[in-house]
């Protein structure tokens, strides 16, 4: 069975965090959920559970970072992007402090808990803060790299994780470059720009429409900020249409970031954005939710056909 992204994260944090004395891990009474509990066990002297006090945690991280530590701040993505936003903006962005904001339970992966626990605006909020890199885990190999990279690179980051498992996209040891998306499959008719679990969903959708002779290029745009402007340009020139797909609101996320590039660079290509419409989500099974909000393979296949009809 594929391990959940949160379990992979917990293990990677132990693997790389133990080796680097500068790493400190903070959690706000959800370490059993975020899986930083593994780090707490392995290295109790560098783990700090601050209780249910996210604003306090995010600001404490600033103090730690300003003294040379590398704080990993952990809570559910929805609370990170709301209660953590003031410190993200003031300290991490404006103050250029090396804080890693780890958004557990990204998207609707905390499915049954409902809208209050779903995080579908986090990418928009974090993207709007100057100086913060916004990255989205899409499989276990990338998750592991994101942790390693976060320790190696001195820059504030928001990294979105998930409660659930994601099908493998990358071979062990795959290398990633910040600011560069990954082409998961080559194609010539239409490009799908994805992040998170939508990468694997898009591969399935590509299989569905391949039977109709449609050739789909699938891109994992895990680096939402900085965005890969070059790659978007290439896709817009080399394929006839673009679909963006994300487990996030259609307002302000990857779709908006791609649309910005298309408009600014004068690329006239039809665009469709798959994502949570501008609404509050509901409780339900993860699969029910993905289907209800048009984020399963069947719904994505429909978007691929309809965008090509406009091309």
């Amino acid at each position, binding site marked *: 069975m594929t391990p959940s992204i949160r379990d992979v994260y917990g293990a990677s944090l132990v693997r790389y965090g133990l080796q680097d004395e500068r790493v400190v891990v903070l*959690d706000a*009474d*959800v*370490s*059993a*959920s975020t899986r930083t*509990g593994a780090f707490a066990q392995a290295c109790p002297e560098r783990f700090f*559970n*601050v*209780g*249910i*006090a996210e*604003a*306090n945690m995010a600001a404490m991280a600033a103090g730690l970072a300003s003294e040379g530590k590398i704080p990993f701040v952990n809570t559910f993505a*929805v*609370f990170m992007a*709301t209660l953590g936003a003031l410190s993200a903006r003031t300290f991490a962005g404006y103050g250029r402090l090396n804080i890693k904001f780890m958004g557990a339970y990204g998207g609707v992966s905390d499915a*049954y*808990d*409902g*809208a*209050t*626990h779903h995080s579908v605006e986090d990418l928009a909020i974090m993207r709007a803060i100057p100086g913060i890199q916004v990255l989205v885990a899409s499989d276990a190999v990338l998750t592991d790299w994101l942790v390693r990279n976060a320790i190696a690179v001195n820059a504030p980051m928001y990294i979105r994780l998930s409660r659930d498992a994601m099908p493998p996209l990358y071979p062990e040891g795959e290398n990633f470059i910040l600011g560069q998306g990954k082409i998961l499959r080559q194609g010539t008719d239409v490009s799908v720009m994805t992040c998170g679990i939508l990468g694997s969903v898009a591969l399935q959708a590509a299989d569905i429409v391949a039977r109709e002779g449609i050739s789909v290029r699938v891109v994992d745009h895990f680096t939402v900020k900085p965005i890969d402007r070059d790659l978007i340009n290439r896709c817009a020139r080399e394929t006839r249409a673009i679909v963006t797909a994300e487990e996030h609101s259609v307002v302000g996320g990857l779709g908006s970031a791609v649309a910005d590039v298309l408009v600014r660079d004068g690329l006239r290509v039809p665009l469709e954005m798959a994502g949570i419409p501008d609404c*509050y989500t*509901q*409780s*339900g*099974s993860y699969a*029910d*939710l993905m289907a*209800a909000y048009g984020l399963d393979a069947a719904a994505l296949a429909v978007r691929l056909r309809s965008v090509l009809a406009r091309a």
Partner: protein
Amino acid sequence: MPLSEQRVTELNALCRTFRRSVIAQLHRIQTGHPGGSLSVCEILTVLYFEKARVDAGNPCDPLRDRIILSKGHAAPMLYRILAEKGFFPLDDLKQLRQFGCHLQGHPCTEGTPGVELPSGPLGIGLSAGLGKAIALRLDHNPARVYVVLGDGELNEGTIWEAAMSGAKFKLDHVTAIVDRNRVQLDGTSDEIMPLDDLAAKWTAFGWQVICCDGHDVRALDAAIDAAHAVRGRPAVILADTIKGKGVSFMEGKSLWHGNPISDSQYQTAMAELGGDDR
């Protein structure tokens, strides 16, 4: 007036039924929060069936008392009680947390009658209650505001911001009730964020503090009476409870904050709980 012997018996019978029903629902759906639902059972039962003025026939009655479940993860217990009060059919509970059902994982005002405000994110319900209390006072409305809080929830700074505001604005028609089960998500409050001396903290913030056994309906009833009698400042009831109360293997264990209930655990729990299947 203290509760009569008969009323105490009735309320305890209701509590047994509610516990049984909540465990059955959570076992069936394999998701949701048993520990904090069980600990808050008597608190909500006394509020809804004895103290607060709420009428399912008129859920928007301007004169109703406002009950805010700030620890929104105890929604299963709230929903069970609202259904018993007649706000919606008991049958709705079968669809708890399922896509398309109004009974969301955490309380939602859209679609669920009897829910005053959305909750789920901890730490903001008391402030919202103060806002309601100020509005009621401006409108010369005699309704009361009750806010039910988790003790882990008191880790949030906003709770103490609200504590200062409640005292400053002399909101004596607000009663906060803390479900003091001494356990949060990751462990005990002593392990995760020590709160003692909790009574001294609230006193220092200008609140009248009343302590009681949060599983004793008569004590809760008396504590709420005592809160009503306070003038010029708000009151907080520190209700001593046990997380997972009534199911021995859940009691006092943070694991049972949100753990799914297996078939054999369900059998054990039901054998211990008693009460009617309703």
